[in-house]
């Protein structure tokens, strides 16, 4: 019993249901052995001086099989709880039968009664144990009545039955009490280990909740800060557009007025204009981040958009660009202006990733699995360190000396708003590959609702 308890406590997991204890196993095993031995002895006695097999042999055989069967069930713990009491009564009747066959009240087989009594004390409660002791005594006395000479039971037989009744009752009470203590001890330790498990689970749950809460708080703070930054950046960007527009007008006027006469002046004016364009691109990203425009998607030829983009964004010196445009590309369902902005951003990132020169490969293809259009931008730059890969689409994350870290955030939003996706793949020393997946135009009819809730939730 102690070993079972220890095992239960040690296992520490969900406690197994209360089935069969070591004590019960011992009693069940003893019952089988004792009964079979008694039956064998009985059969042996019966066989002496008798040649043909009689009905008695058959009965003993059936009883032996019954004993073996019930013993196996008990040892495996497969007995139905409701059958325990009837089986005990059957055992007592069996013992009574053996005693009757083996010579009545003076037979030593009366000791077999202790088996069901012991079993009752170990497997059932105190009341049932006492009841089985009393029943055994009664049955024993009944044997005495039926086998005694005439109807009178001799004093010796009475003493024998009385002694048995007293010792059986005492034994039943003793073992039942002992067993009750043992059971309650086991139950308590099982409960305690269950409590400990529950406590540990609660503790883990609490830790998890605390972690989630901290994460949520961090997210909220970041989100609030971003919203504030976005608001500020948006209004600043808007205010900057007017003076930039004036500067661009001045550049235009100067180019017309004096640019034709002096090549150096013309170059300076072009430089001014180019710088204004850079500012304007930054402002466009800021405004997009702060107050995203609504997408107005339409069926568009991605190959054409890519070709135009590359034509208007020639690679810097030392960088070559290679286009691999897919044949029979389906039309994509995109906002031309916004997707142009996305491609422009990725392409410029690729150029900037290769200050020492390299190659950009732009590949368009139709995607079989998602039935969409796929555009890949692969550069031969140093790639992105794996630690940065996860954060590359986070706002305000940048590894460039110049830049505010909004480009890819805005790209991701723009693409997702149009039902597409953007991902980055990077192998050490192989450069980075950005993949943009877009919906094809045929889906448009079913999913027009999508564009209504286009705005990101930040």
């Amino acid at each position: 019993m102690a070993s079972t308890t220890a095992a239960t406590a040690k296992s520490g997991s969900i406690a197994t249901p209360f089935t069969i204890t070591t004590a019960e196993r011992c009693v069940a095993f003893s019952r089988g052995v004792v009964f079979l031995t008694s039956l064998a002895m009985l059969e042996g006695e019966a066989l002496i001086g008798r040649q043909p097999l009689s009905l008695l042999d058959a009965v003993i055989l059936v009883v032996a099989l019954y004993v073996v069967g019930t013993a196996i069930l008990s040892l495996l713990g497969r007995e139905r709880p409701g059958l325990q009491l009837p089986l005990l009564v059957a055992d007592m009747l069996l013992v009574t039968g053996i005693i009757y066959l083996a010579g009545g009240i003076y037979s030593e087989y009366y000791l077999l009664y202790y088996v069901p009594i012991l079993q009752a004390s170990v497997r059932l409660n105190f009341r049932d144990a006492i009841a089985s002791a009393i029943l055994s005594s009664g049955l024993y006395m009944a044997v005495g009545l039926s086998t005694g000479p005439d109807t009178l039971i001799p004093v010796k037989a009475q003493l024998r039955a009385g002694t048995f009744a007293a010792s059986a009752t005492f034994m039943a009470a003793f073992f039942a009490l002992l067993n009750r203590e043992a059971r309650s001890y086991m139950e308590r330790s099982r409960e305690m280990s269950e409590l400990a498990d529950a406590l540990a689970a609660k503790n883990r749950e609490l830790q998890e909740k605390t972690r989630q809460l901290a994460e949520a708080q961090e997210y909220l703070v970041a989100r609030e800060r971003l919203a504030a930054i976005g608001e500020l950046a948006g209004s600043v960007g808007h205010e900057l557009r007017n003076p930039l527009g004036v500067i661009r007008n001045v550049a235009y006027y100067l180019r017309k007025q004096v640019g034709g006469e002096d090549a150096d002046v013309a170059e300076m004016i072009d430089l001014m204009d180019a710088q204004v364009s850079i500012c304007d691109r930054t402002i466009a990203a800021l405004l997009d981040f702060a107050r995203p425009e609504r997408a107005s998607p339409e069926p568009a030829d991605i190959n054409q958009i890519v070709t135009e983009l590359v034509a208007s964004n020639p690679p810097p010196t030392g960088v070559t660009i290679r286009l691999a445009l897919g044949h029979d590309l389906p039309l994509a369902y995109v906002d031309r202006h916004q997707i142009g902005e996305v491609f422009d951003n990725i392409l410029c990132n690729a150029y900037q990733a290769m200050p020492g020169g390299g190659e950009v490969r732009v590949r368009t293809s139709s995607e079989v699995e998602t039935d969409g259009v796929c555009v890949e931008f692969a550069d031969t730059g140093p790639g992105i360190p794996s630690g940065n890969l996860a954060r590359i689409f986070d706002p305000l994350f940048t590894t460039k000396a110049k830049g505010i870290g909004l480009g890819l955030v805005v790209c991701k939003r723009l693409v997702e708003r149009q039902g597409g996706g953007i991902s980055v793949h990077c192998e050490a020393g192989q450069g980075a590959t950005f993949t943009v997946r877009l919906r094809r135009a045929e889906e448009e009819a079913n999913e027009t609702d999508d564009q209504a809730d286009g705005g990101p939730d930040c």
Partner: protein
Amino acid sequence: MRLMTRPTAVLIVDDDAGMRLTLRRIIEREGHTVFAAQDGSEALDIAAREAIDIAFIDHKMVGMTGGDTCTALHRLQPEAELYVMTAYVSPEAAEAAVAGGTAGILYKPLDIDRLLTLITDRAARRRERNAEKEGH
């Protein structure tokens, strides 16, 4: 014949002095007449006394918005071609443009070449119409 020689009258409405000056210089350089107003009411004053062929009106202004100005100008001079200029693509600007009977929206920073093309196209159409009138 006298009408044909009149230069195209362009109205610029913008509360930014730099924008008004640079657009004036650029457009005048092409030989057109430029009127500049810093807000809607000043624009309406000009429109009350001058014939305007084409107008470029900033959307975001103190007082009357670009849309309101357009509506009022359209009532005064239905012949004038009206364009709203905006620094930012917004549904409001687009609605104002539609409501004011405007010919279109121009986004800032302005594409000056396009702006000048709009003016010369307008001038060409005016000359064609005048030629037809002469013919009758």
